């Protein structure tokens, strides 16, 4: 059973068709790419899959369950996570708190337990804080733990965004332009991290990028969007040789 | 239940509704221009009334006082916008809402400092015995309220529809960045919107002062203005006018048929129902942000 199955999905904003009739199948353990020039509808596609935007027609199935029209937080609870193109960190809290917030759905103590610091709450907090600490270390963020997230350079913020998304333990992670705004070195490190996430921790990745170069080294399969429609799909190498794809990118040198 | 009573009530309702309409207009104007609701609008009405009191005390007749108050209010509005609102325009919505409340608070406190809670009165040419028209008795003040609103609405319609600056203001309300790119000085537009809105508020104060007296609590009617604006979806000037008139009518009939308690409940019942069920009002577009 495919992990994520998108079938003939269309997303419209008023009269504008952002995504038209896109289909995609992602199997567990894969690294999938979604590529296209700016304005191709990539972010709208992610927004529709994560429930933040309503789908006009078509179906989205995650783990066999139809999720189109389901509330976003419920979709995340099923194990679908995402990172944001513009990061969306909780800017005035520390990096540690940001990542700690990522563990929300794994904590279950109630309001009364929180208010009176009952045993259940205390235990959950201790355990989760330790997990957050380890996660920060894994992402080389320990030095920034107490820094206000909003003050950090963009590249580091992106790392925090990924770490935070991972705290929720997603089965499938949608990454929206994870290396945009990063330097060469940072981008390479990010790619290495992503590959490690997929290989060693079994997280399925769907990476949205407009930079073909990045996906060349990372994705196994790629779909190309242009003006909201599916242009082509195949391996990155095939896409680089595809004339229609090259034409779409003319003027958008990757 | 005779026709005479129904018509009489309608007149009452429309006249007080006109006042609500004007306050509603004053609220929607700066909101359309700069996205800020001026919760000090009630105190602007009070300010207008007290300014009239001061000028009247200097011996000026009512008709001379009117233009002076309007000019004074416009200047006050522009000063407020430049000095207090524009510097904080980028703060979260929370701050913006509270700032206008604070401005109103300061205005009211300053007024009470000088005049305490006494009620004053001034004379005006339209205060007098009821006019008799067939079977109807018309309070001339009511007529003035209704006529003034008609004139104001017509003037605004012409201004926004046909004058260059009016169109510039509409453009800025739709898309400030595009307006800027077209050479429109949006700073002037914001100032003008606030000046216009302050003038409207002060005008209401001028109308009410001779009729209900001048005291610091006049400003309480901002709530009615808010309801009027919400009925109009807070995005439509025409909607605010219709909203005000509707509210006036609803209140008056409710009070007549069901008593004072019900009358007081009407505005807030309407407000809450609309906000929860149809925030875009009866006229506005369905673009209210819902997360």
């Amino acid at each position, binding site marked *: 059973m495919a992990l994520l199955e998108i079938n003939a999905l269309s997303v419209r904003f008023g009269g504008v068709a952002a995504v038209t009739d896109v289909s995609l199948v992602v199997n567990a353990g894969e690294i999938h790419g979604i590529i296209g020039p700016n304005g191709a509808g990539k972010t709208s596609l992610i927004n529709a899959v994560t*429930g*933040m935007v309503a789908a006009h027609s078509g179906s989205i199935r995650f783990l066999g369950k139809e999720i189109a029209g389901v509330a976003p*937080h419920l979709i995340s609870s099923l194990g679908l*996570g*995402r990172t*944001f193109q513009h990061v*969306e960190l909780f*800017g005035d*809290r520390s990096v540690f*708190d940001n990542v700690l*917030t*990522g563990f*929300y*759905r794994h*904590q279950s103590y109630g*309001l009364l337990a*929180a*208010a*009176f610091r009952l045993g259940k*709450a205390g235990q959950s907090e201790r355990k989760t804080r330790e*997990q957050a600490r380890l*996660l920060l270390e*894994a992402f*080389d963020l*320990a*030095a920034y733990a107490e*820094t206000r997230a909003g*003050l950090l350079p963009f590249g580091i913020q992106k790392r925090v965004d990924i770490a935070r*998304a991972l*705290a929720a333990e997603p089965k499938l992670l949608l990454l929206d332009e994870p290396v945009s705004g990063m330097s060469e070195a940072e981008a390479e490190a990010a790619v290495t991290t992503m590959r*490690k996430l997929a290989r060693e*921790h079994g997280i399925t990745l769907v990476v949205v990028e407009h930079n073909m170069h990045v996906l060349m080294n990372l994705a196994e399969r790629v779909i190309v969007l242009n003006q909201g429609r599916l242009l082509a799909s195949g391996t990155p190498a095939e896409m680089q040789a595809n004339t229609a794809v090259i034409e779409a990118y003319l003027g958008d040198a990757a | 239940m005779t026709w005479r009573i129904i018509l009489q009530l309608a007149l009452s309702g429309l006249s007080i509704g006109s006042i609500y309409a004007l306050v509603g207009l004053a609220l929607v104007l700066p909101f359309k221009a700069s996205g800020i*609701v001026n919760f000090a609008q009630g105190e602007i009405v009070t300010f207008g009334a007290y300014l009239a009191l001061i000028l009247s005390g200097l011996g000026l007749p009512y008709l001379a006082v009117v233009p002076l108050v309007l000019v004074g209010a416009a200047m006050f509005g522009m000063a407020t916008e430049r000095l207090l609102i524009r510097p*904080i325009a980028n*703060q979260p*919505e*929370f*701050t913006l*809402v*509270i*700032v206008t409340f*604070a*401005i109103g*608070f*300061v205005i009211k*406190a*300053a007024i*009470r*400092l000088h005049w305490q809670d006494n009620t004053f009165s001034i004379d005006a040419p339209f205060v007098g015995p009821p006019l008799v028209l067939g079977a109807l008795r018309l309070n001339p003040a009511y007529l003035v309220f209704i006529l003034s609103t008609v004139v104001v609405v017509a003037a605004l319609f012409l201004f926004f529809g046909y004058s260059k600056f009016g169109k510039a203001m509409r453009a800025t309300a739709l898309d400030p960045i595009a307006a800027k790119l077209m050479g429109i000085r949006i700073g002037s537009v914001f100032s003008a919107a606030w000046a216009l809105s302050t003038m409207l508020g002060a005008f209401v104060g001028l109308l009410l002062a001779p009729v209900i007296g001048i005291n610091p609590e006049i400003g309480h009617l901002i*709530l009615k203005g*808010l309801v009027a604006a919400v009925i109009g979806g807070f995005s439509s000037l025409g909607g605010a006018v219709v909203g005000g008139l509707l509210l006036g009518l609803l209140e008056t009939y409710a009070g007549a048929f069901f008593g004072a308690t019900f009358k007081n*409940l009407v*505005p*807030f019942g309407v*407000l*809450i129902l609309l*906000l*929860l069920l149809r925030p875009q009002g009866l006229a506005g577009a369905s673009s*209210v942000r819902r*997360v």
Partner: protein
Amino acid sequence: MRARVLLILAGLALLAALPLVATSYYLYLVELAMINVIVAVGLNLLSGNCGQISLCNASFMGIGAYCTALCTTHFGLPTLIALPASVVVSALLGAALGYPARRLSGLYLALTTLGFLELVGIVIEEFPDYTGGIRGLKVAKPDIFGLILQSNAALYFFVFVLTIAAVVVGANVQRSRYGRAFDAVRQSPFAAQALGIPVARVKVIAFSLNAAFAGFAGGLLASVVGFIDPPEFGILTSIQHITFIVVGGLGSITGSIVGAVALTALPEALRGVQEYAELIYGLILLGTLLFLPKGLVGLVARLEMLRPAKPLTEPPAKPPAKEPAYGAS
């Protein structure tokens, strides 16, 4: 850290010893300040942390006050039942307001809370058989296990202990996953949803919690003052509450305490210039909003930043052989 704890304990000890030296008037003033602290802590959770504007905080205080008054005076219930009952009633009404309002924000939310405020005010005035209407309501002194708290000292300790409890509860909630959820909803509802945080439900919880604190404070106020009337729970009081947290510092428990204490003391300090009191109060609010957006707590933080800071550097490169242990889960 140690120093801070000692400072707090010293301060609490001083407060506890106050009845020995202070007159009944000053005790009353401190009691008012403590009740305002409870209000501020609750409001800060809703508005400072969760970012939801509420102009009807005074209403919930009033609901708690009238509820306690009715329970003790009308139904003769002991205070230890009346107060929790008031908290529960307030919390339920807070949820009742929060639920339909959960999708609103900014202006529309402010207007809805304003409407609620007016509605509650009207209900209080239109049912004088229960609420005493505009003439107000007398409230019996607190009755703890049959012991009536008559003396100033007893009343003071009653409020003192309950205030500490409320502040601790507030701090606990803020440090818990709920506090983090509140902040997340304020700063980025999209990121919050992506992490599985139910944004709408969190807002309702925040409203309910705020109402509970306000209702608790209201019940205490009724018990301490012995008399309540409608003007105490109007828009002006709501703005006062907002002033506490704006001046003190949004989103901070310390800010709530500092703001509430400073602004309860202020009208007292202005007693000599009574007529100017309102004006000065308004100007302080305006001034803080314009020049100190992060409140007094923010001012202290900024002053601290002026101290020579540790430079923000990249951590030294790790030896390539070491594999980061992402085995956290």
